[in-house]
Each structure stands twice: as structure tokens, then as C-alpha cells.
């Protein structure tokens, strides 16, 4: 962004001002995530930087809260993590299967009422979560599925499918349908064609939709708060209660682990996006 030599002073000043604003916004976006790292290694019980930490005294740092997270006697994090992973994995599987199949139908040019059906399928993403929570709670209570894993998994499938539908339809929009016709003309049945031809080509889109569904479920707290009993506690619920009641540094240890997890997800999502663009022949 080097400025040409002939730039007038006022534009020069404006340009540096613009760079300053951008720097500020980037710091605003990313810095909050980095306060958590050092504080989670705090040797003391307070959520502020102690004098020792400011002087980089090694005694002021410890792994105490990580130990507490894993071995703590009263800590519910073990159960919460287990529940979160089980629920998120099943919700992702459900969302991916239902969403991909629906996206295949939606991308067909023969699909009737495309607009209204698409709007319905996307609606859980647009309707405020609190309303989805109330509605899903009414259904689950009637179906006897409140406070069960099944109920929460179904709820998260509802919330996760829109992401799969959107990413897979986007992938299919660049899809060359003549390859499936070629397969059919060579005698392949539709299921075989899908498994051998279509799926490998749209797989990056399917997986990145799945990642969205996974994160949605793993991160979801509003609907779970309505549905979960003591047995179905999840990581977000524990964080929510922890943040409301006693802010213990153990939460920061958990948060650090979650940030590492989201970094991994970000990297895989980026790699998938690039692969998908390569497969669809979009060159940048």
C-alpha cells in the first residue's frame, strides 16, 4: 500500500489515518482472544494480571487450572465434554445427511417452489435463537424428549442443516451435470453415480457444511438451556453457569482449549475452501 510520491499531504494524512483505523479494528477483533491465554496460566485465583505476571516471574504462572479442569473432584467438565462431543457428532451426521440430500434436490432445475422451500429450510438460521428455543422446547416436551440426548441432537440437527444446505448448494452451483449424465449413459445406477462421481466432487462443500454444523452444535447454548437436564450438561452450559456464578480461572483453561479447537477448525475450513475452489475450477 505504498503511496505514490506525488500524493498530496492531506491524502497522505488521510491514508495513515485509514491504516490506523484498520489496525485498531484488527486489534479489537483478535486481542480479546489473546487475553485468555496468559490468564489461564495464572497461579492465583483472580482473573486479573498479578504483579508477578506483569514482571514475568515464573512462579506467578502454573498449570493449576488445567489440572483442576481435568482432575478436579467437583468439576463437571469431563461429563460436559463427553456430552458435547457425542451430541455434536450425531447432530453433524444428521445435518450432513439430511442437508446434502435436500441440497441435491434443491439444485435440480426441475425443483418446484424452489424459493419458498429454500426459505423454509434456511429459516432456523434466521429466526432468533430464543424463539427457536421456545418452539423446539414445546415440541420436545410434547414428544417426551426434553432432557434427553436424543432431544438435544434433534434440536441441533434443526439448527445445523441450514449451513449444510447453503454450502452444498453453493458447491453444486458450479457442478458440471454432464459428468453424471455420462455415468448414467455408461450404465451406472443413480446411487452408484452419486457415491462414485457426485460425492467425491462435492465432498469439500459437504465437509465444510459439516464443520459449520459441528461448531453450531458444539457452541449452542440457548436451546440447550431449555432442553437440558442435569445429565445432559454440555460445555457451553457449564461455561454459562460458570460465568454467571463464580468466575473461576478453570473457565479460562477450558476457553483456551476451545480457542485451540476453533483454530484447528478454521485451518481445516480454509484448506477445504481452497480445495473446493480448485475442484470447481475457480482460479484466483
Amino acid at each position: 500500500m505504498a503511496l505514490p510520491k506525488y500524493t498530496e499531504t492531506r491524502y497522505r494524512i488521510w491514508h495513515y489515518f485509514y491504516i490506523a483505523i484498520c489496525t485498531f479494528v484488527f486489534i479489537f477483533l483478535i486481542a480479546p482472544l489473546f487475553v485468555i491465554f496468559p490468564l489461564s496460566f495464572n497461579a492465583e485465583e483472580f482473573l486479573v494480571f498479578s504483579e508477578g505476571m506483569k514482571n514475568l516471574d515464573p512462579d506467578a504462572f502454573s498449570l493449576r487450572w488445567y489440572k483442576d479442569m481435568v482432575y478436579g473432584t467437583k468439576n463437571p467438565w469431563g461429563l460436559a465434554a463427553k456430552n458435547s462431543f457425542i451430541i455434536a457428532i450425531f447432530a453433524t451426521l444428521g445435518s450432513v445427511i439430511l442437508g446434502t440430500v435436500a441440497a441435491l434436490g434443491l439444485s435440480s432445475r426441475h425443483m418446484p417452489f424452489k424459493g419458498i422451500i429454500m426459505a423454509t429450510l434456511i429459516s432456523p438460521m434466521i429466526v432468533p435463537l430464543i424463539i427457536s428455543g421456545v418452539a423446539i422446547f414445546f415440541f420436545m416436551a410434547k414428544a417426551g424428549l426434553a432432557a434427553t440426548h436424543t432431544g438435544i441432537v434433534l434440536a441441533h440437527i434443526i439448527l445445523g442443516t441450514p449451513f449444510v444446505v447453503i454450502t452444498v448448494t453453493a458447491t453444486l452451483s458450479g457442478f458440471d451435470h454432464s459428468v453424471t449424465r455420462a455415468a448414467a449413459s455408461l450404465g451406472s445406477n443413480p446411487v452408484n453415480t452419486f457415491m462414485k462421481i457426485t460425492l467425491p466432487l462435492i465432498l469439500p462443500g459437504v465437509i465444510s457444511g459439516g464443520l459449520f454444523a459441528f461448531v453450531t452444535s458444539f457452541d449452542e447454548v440457548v436451546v440447550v438451556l431449555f432442553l437440558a437436564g442435569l445429565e445432559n450438561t454440555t460445555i457451553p452450559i457449564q461455561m454459562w453457569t460458570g460465568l454467571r456464578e463464580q468466575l473461576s480461572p478453570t473457565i479460562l483453561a477450558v476457553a483456551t482449549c476451545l480457542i485451540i479447537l476453533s483454530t484447528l477448525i478454521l485451518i481445516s475450513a480454509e484448506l477445504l475452501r481452497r480445495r473446493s475452489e480448485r475442484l470447481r475450477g475457480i482460479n484466483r
Partner: protein
Amino acid sequence: MSSETKQILTTDGIPLEISLKKAERKNKIKAFLLVAPLLLFLIITYIFPIGEMFTRSIDDKMITNMLPKTFKSMETWDGKELPPEEVFASFLSDFKILVDKKEHGKLAQRLNKEKNGFTTITKKLFRQVKRNKIDETQSIKEQIMKVHKRWRNVEYWQAIKRTAPPYTSAKYLKAMDMYLNEDNKITQVSEDRRIHRILWLRTVEVAFFVTVFCFLMGYPIAHLLATLPMKYSNLLMICVLLPFWTSLLVRTASWMILLQQQGVVNDFFVMIGLVADDNRPEMMYNKVGTYVAMTQILLPFMVLPLYSVMKTISPSLMRAGKSLGGTPFVAFWKVYFPLTIPGIGAGCLLVFILAIGYYITPALVGGASGTLISNQIAYHMKSTLDWSFASAMGLMLLSGVLVIYWIYNKLVGVDNIKLG
């Protein structure tokens, strides 16, 4: 050839047009069958329950089923003076059934909501009925009127009559701080009890300002990301995408740490001498906290659509604008800015829709002055268990969001939502 064109036939003798239509219909059914499982699933578990919220919010059948004979006999009563003997008699027989089913408490509770004072007089009547003090061969009207002076007051009978319809708009009026008075007129509640209207206004205000802040902060960085060379912008893009993928609660937690009185932001202010050490401002548990945290959390939803639009604008357009004599500001305002309007629309509407239904962050960092309508809905769902009131408020919020969604759809189209 004659003037009539000959019908084209397929090899098996069926007219081509019909044969094509058949194939078309087959394809249509095939496509629909693929969508059907998800559509059915969503309709049963999601769309119907939202509809159920509506019936629940206007439902007032409980009392209609409790006093069927009373309401039947009240049909002929003009409601001006005390009702005739017949009404009293059917009320007593309805009431006796309720006493047998031990549901008279529920009746008292419901009637008390309509008019204060019903709890006491139903209790008194209950005692008389329990002790079999009411002689059915005598005038029931006289006996009930003797139980308590309020039974002689026509206003209480009018209140009972008002509860007759199986549906009520009371919950919706309550959400707007209004109620139906004795003459069936919509009235405002007294000034000191108007809490919901403040919450609605605050919700819209917070959503609006968060959208404005997101736009003001998101536009410059989206522009920078779109104009920088790939290798730098990919690196900076991480600053946008990492928060996007990080748990909402983690980000809220970090804001709670940053904004607390002994927190990093206050430390910084003290360090540069902006505030005195013993006079650190409270930045959390008020609107400041809500604004700051929500802006950071929703900013990626503004940057991503803006970026995807700006990426398609050719830099030569700005150069052309400048070479035709425009200053950089004029070139930006007349050439670049109008081209980014679709992105601005998409980003702003997305952020506004998300902000208006926000619940978790305001509940944690907002304190009392940061609570929004969603918090109120959750409160009535979980604490007071007034589910019909929560449903009514939820649907009012939903209709607002749907209007915005509809505009969004008209302007950008749902299928143009871009993720990541």
C-alpha cells in the same frame, strides 16, 4: 404442406409434447422426494411448534371449559345490572364440579388476573359449598350475595363475562404494556409499570447501534482486505475468521475479563492517564459492555459479505474515476461506494437480524440496563413459567425479524448468503 403444422410423434407414437411433460413431471417428483425428508422433519419439529406458540399465546380455553354453564346462561344477560337467578345457579353448579375436581384454586387465580379481589371471595364461597351451607331449594342468588359483598358488585360479574371467549389478546397487549379495561377498551398501564415498552425500544436501539458500529468498523477493514495483495490479506483474514469460529461464550468471557474494573482496558486507561486509579469507570454490567461485546462478536458477519462484494470491484474503476478528474474522495464516493451498496445491505441486515434476537451476551455483560426482550422471554419461560406470555413476545419479535428477512430476500436473495 397445409397451414396446420403436423404433430411431432415419438417412436412409440405418443405426441412429443406429452412425452416431454411426463419426463418433466418425473424429474420434478424426483427432486421433490430428495428435499422431502428434511422439509418434513423441519415442518414437524420446527414450523408446527412455532404455530403452536401462536395458539398458546392467544389460548384462554381453560376458563371457558371451567364455567361452561355459566357462560351459556350469561349469553342473554345484558351486563348492566346484577345477573338473574339463572346465572347464579349455573355458576354454583359449575363451581361445585370444580370443587370436586379441586380446581377452584386455578379458577380464582385466573379470575384474579382479570380483576383483583376474586381470590378472597372464591375462597369464602368454597367454604360455604364445602360445608353444604347453600340450600338449593331457596334462591341461590340471595345466598351467594350474602357470602361476600363483592358478589353483590356487578363489576365482578362483568369480569367473569369478559373471560368467556376462548381466545384472548391479553398477552399481546401486556407485551405492549396495555390491557383491556372494564368497557373492553385498550388502556395503558400506569406509568411506573411500563417495563416492556422500554425493553422493546432498548432492543431496537441496541440492534441499530451495534449495526452502525459494525458498519463503521467493518467497512474500512473489508476495503483493506479486498485491496491488499493476497499474501497479506490472507494473513489478516485470520483476524476476522478466528473470532468467527470461536465459541460465543469464550468471546463473552474474554470481554468480561477485559472490561472489569481491575481489567486490562481500565489498566490501560489508568496507564495513559485517562482516568484516576481510584476512579475506574464501570464498563461492564451496563450498556457499554453490551455494545462493545456485541459489536466485536457480530463484526465478522458484516466484514464477510462486504469483502465478497468488494473483491469483485475492479481497481481500474477507481483509477478511471481519478483520471477523469475526480479527487480520490470524489472517485470513492461516486464510483466505489455505490458499487458496494449490495454488500452494505447484506451485512447490515444480517447483523441487525442477529443482534435483535441476542440473548447470551446481554445477559452476561449487560447487567440490569443491558437486558433485552430476549432475556425477558427466557425469564418467562424458565422462571415465571408464563409460557403463553413468552410465546406472545417471541412471536412479536419473530414478525419483526420476518419483515427484515423479507426485505433482505428482496434485496440480496437468500441463496446469496456467503459463509466464510
